[in-house]
């Protein structure tokens, strides 16, 4: 069965990103049988809940997000409490009675001594140079407070270590009120890893064995499934930082050439043809800080503002001509500051946006590839957790956010966030199969098993400008490895 047979189907049957590249492959097939066809994967963008173009700011405050969050998580925890401790009464915080054991559900607030306050800015001189990146603000004197609509209560007891928690997570606590008015914690219940739809990997494998089925009967989806069963790879790259002093154009060009199949012999090209998708996870450009200090820029210097973005567009152009690319904004990119960051404007990419394989996405970003659910951010959520709490490594933070069922628990407390009134879009309703964060210092990955047979691949994508590493994920078995482009001449 040749790809040519599929061409007569009407365009509306095809997910739009597939059609142009398939036709190109068909033409190449006719000219020379030595060229490889790139694999395809069915892409489904699920960013709608992170978009804010329909929202209208009416002067609301952040209390609505916390209300939404508490309401949803509380309902969830109430349904889990009977399995956890069935005989204890569940109370609100104002309904606590001294000495009586009960369960309360609320949002945690962590009182931190070293947490920077906005008022500090008024006591120091305004400096043009950005402050050194702050380190960890954890202090031994931090304590936790539980809060719901009726009131708040300080938590005591040795079970909860404040350095492991942050403000904004919703938990259920078992304990009793002490004579001082504090709540002595005996046990804690987190929501746990959310339910996950089972991976359809096995179904793809068995269809591979069918010898011939008429494409007209199965339809386009059926044909693609028959073609699959091979390894398909997704490339993650982040922290390109084009425009910064450490950006090496050769490194990124090598990456682009390798992915698009312009490098190497037939073996390498066959590997490259199995890459179905590229995700650029934030910090693709870095505008020189001196230009952002607020002074007016002379016309001759204005071009330096746009140089990095133009360079990114040229490089992206080469990528999108070959396969679908998702680009997410990061903390240094020209997008809004607060989460959820909105997609980078298509005007920034006059060359690349002409292709329909170019997808500008929000941060956080959620999508499906061949029914495998991906969820990830450009790193702001985990970087903030790192500032306000402690854990073994970044992967543990990722796992904690899954267990707390919230992508960015510290929003809006210490991470900028849009004041939604009717929902909290960062709640994780269904467990992703792949959970990634960008702009980390080093590559780390692990496979997490949940109590209900959930399986999640956690990935920390390293900064490409510093490490020269991109991450490659195999969709068939969720295995991960790095793609490394060292360009130093040390031998």
């Amino acid at each position, binding site marked *: 069965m040749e790809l040519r047979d599929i061409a007569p189907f009407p365009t509306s049957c095809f997910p739009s990103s597939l059609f142009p590249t398939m036709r190109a492959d068909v033409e190449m097939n006719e000219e020379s049988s030595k060229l490889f066809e790139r694999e395809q994967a069915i892409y489904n963008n699920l960013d709608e809940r992170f978009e804010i173009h329909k929202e209208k700011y*009416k002067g*609301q*405050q952040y*209390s*609505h997000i916390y*209300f939404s969050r508490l309401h949803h998580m509380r309902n969830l925890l109430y349904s889990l409490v009977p399995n956890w401790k069935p005989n204890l009464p569940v109370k609100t915080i104002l309904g606590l009675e001294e000495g009586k054991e009960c369960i309360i559900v609320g949002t945690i607030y962590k009182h931190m001594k070293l947490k920077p306050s906005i008022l500090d800015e008024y006591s120091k001189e305004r400096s043009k140079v950005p402050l050194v990146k702050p380190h960890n603000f954890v202090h031994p004197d931090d304590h936790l407070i539980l809060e719901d*609509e009726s009131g708040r209560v300080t938590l005591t007891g040795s079970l909860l270590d404040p350095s492991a928690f942050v403000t904004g997570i919703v938990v259920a606590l078992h304990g009793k009120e002490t004579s001082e008015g504090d709540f002595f914690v005996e046990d804690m219940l987190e929501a746990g890893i959310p339910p996950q739809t089972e991976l359809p990997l096995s179904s793809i494998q068995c269809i591979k064995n069918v010898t011939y089925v008429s494409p007209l009967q199965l339809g386009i989806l059926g044909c693609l499934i028959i073609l699959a069963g091979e390894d398909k790879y997704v490339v993650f790259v982040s922290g390109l930082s084009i425009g910064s002093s450490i950006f090496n154009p050769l490194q990124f060009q090598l990456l682009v050439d390798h992915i698009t199949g312009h490098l190497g012999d037939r073996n390498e090209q066959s590997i490259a043809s199995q890459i179905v998708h590229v995700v650029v996870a934030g910090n693709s450009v870095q505008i020189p800080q001196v230009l952002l200090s607020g002074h007016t820029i002379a016309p001759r210097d204005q071009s330096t503002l746009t140089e990095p973005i133009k360079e990114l567009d040229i490089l992206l152009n080469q990528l999108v001509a070959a396969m679908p690319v998702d680009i997410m904004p990061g903390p240094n990119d020209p997008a809004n500051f607060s989460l959820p960051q909105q997609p980078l404007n298509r005007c920034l990419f006059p060359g690349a946006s002409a292709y329909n394989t170019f997808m500008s996405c929000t941060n956080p970003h959620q999508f499906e590839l061949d029914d495998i659910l991906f969820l990830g951010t450009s790193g702001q959520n985990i970087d903030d957790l790192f500032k306000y709490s402690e854990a073994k490594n970044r992967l543990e933070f990722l796992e904690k956010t899954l267990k707390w069922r919230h992508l960015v628990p510290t929003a809006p407390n210490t991470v900028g966030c849009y004041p939604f*009134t*009717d929902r909290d879009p960062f709640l994780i309703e269904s467990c992703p199969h792949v959970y990634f964060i960008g702009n980390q210092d080093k590559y780390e990955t692990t496979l997490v098993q949940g109590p209900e047979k959930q399986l999640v691949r956690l990935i920390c994508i390293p900064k490409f400008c510093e490490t020269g590493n991109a991450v490659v994920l195999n969709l068939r078995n969720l295995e991960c490895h790095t793609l490394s482009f060292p360009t130093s001449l040390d031998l």
Partner: protein
Amino acid sequence: MASSGLKNFYRQKKKGGVAKRSSNRSFAGKSPTVSLSHLVDPVPSPLHGTLLSSRCSGAGRDKVPLAAGIGEEEDEKLRQFDMDMRYGPCIGLSRTDRWERAAAMGLNPPAEVETILLKSSAAASGCLWDGRV
């Protein structure tokens, strides 16, 4: 400084039963409005109205103009809906949005509130604390 702030209060639309209660009582003691009373109509500001809440069930309602098309009883129901903590904070959200949000979350907000909100768009788009916070 105080007078310019109070002038903003006075810009509120005055409807119906505003001056029902005697306005002189609100000027007891060191009220800053006394200095302006010869310039502007002595309409008591809502801020002072709240201080006299003891006699009525709702806080300071009698000093703030009722929304168009709403009777006192219905206004009371809307106020109760606003103050009910079960449906979340009410500031920064129009009443209709808040009602819809409560319905979407499965909190079963009272249906009679919805009928009142459909009747009057002025009441629906505001909330108890408009202009006071």
